[in-house]
C-alpha cells in the first residue's frame, strides 16, 4: 500500500501563478522529500524536510510539514512553463529505510 498520497492528481495553472500540492501519509516518519519527474525521465530530488522541522525553503519552493496531521505541502511560487512535470512526495520511516512514494501530482503550467 502507498505510504504517501498526493492531492490533487492533476493541476493546471497559468505561468506566474502559484502551485500548491499536498501529500498525506499514514505512519510516523523520519523525513519527507519531494521529487520532480519530467515525462518518462528519472526523478530529481527537490527538497527534504525532517520530522522535527515545520517549514523549509529552497528558491521558489516552500515545503511545510504537519506531523500531527501527517501531511505536507509543496508550494511553487511564480510558476514557469518549465515547471511542468510530475511531483512526488516520498517518506522515509527510519534511517536506512526505503523511500516510499505516492502516485504524484501532474502539474501543467501554461505559458
Amino acid at each position, binding site marked *: 500500500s*502507498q505510504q*504517501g498520497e498526493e492531492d490533487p492528481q492533476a493541476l493546471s495553472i497559468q505561468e506566474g501563478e502559484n502551485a500548491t500540492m499536498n501529500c498525506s501519509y499514514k505512519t510516523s516518519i*523520519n*523525513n519527507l*522529500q519531494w*521529487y520532480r519527474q519530467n515525462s*518518462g*525521465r*528519472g*526523478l*530529481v*530530488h527537490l527538497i*527534504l524536510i525532517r520530522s522535527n522541522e515545520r517549514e523549509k525553503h529552497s528558491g521558489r519552493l516552500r515545503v511545510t510539514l504537519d506531523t500531527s496531521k501527517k501531511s505536507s505541502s509543496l508550494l511553487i511560487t511564480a510558476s514557469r512553463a518549465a515547471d511542468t512535470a510530475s511531483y*512526488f512526495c*516520498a517518506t*522515509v520511516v527510519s*534511517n*536506512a*529505510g*526505503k*523511500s*516510499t*512514494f*505516492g*502516485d*504524484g501530482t501532474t502539474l501543467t503550467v501554461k505559458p
Partner: protein
Amino acid sequence: DAGVTQSPTHLIKTRGQQVTLRCSPKSGHDTVSWYQQALGQGPQFIFQYYEEEERQRGNFPDRFSGHQFPNYSSELNVNALLLGDSALYLCASSPGGYRANTGELFFGEGSRLTVL
C-alpha cells in the same frame, strides 16, 4: 562528476524471457536501490543493496533478483517475464552507507522495459 547511469535505456522482451538491467551509481555513493514505475503511478521499491548484500526488499516476487558488485554497480534481473512487468525501472543511489542514509536519492534516467 557522472551521475547515476543505467543501461539499456529501452528494451523489448517477450513473455517468459529474462532480462538484466544495469546501474552505475553516482561517484562516492555505495548504496543502490531499484524501483519499478508503471505508467501513471509512483515508483515502487523493489530492493536495496549495500556492501554487496540485499538489505531491504519490497513486495516483489522472487522472479526479481539483484546483485551489487565491489565497485558498487548493480544489476536487476527479472525472470519469467509477465506482461505486467512492463514499466520504467529506476535505479537510485545514495551515500554514506545505508545506516546513515537520510533517504535522499539520486536517480538514473531509467530503463524502459516493454514485455510483449
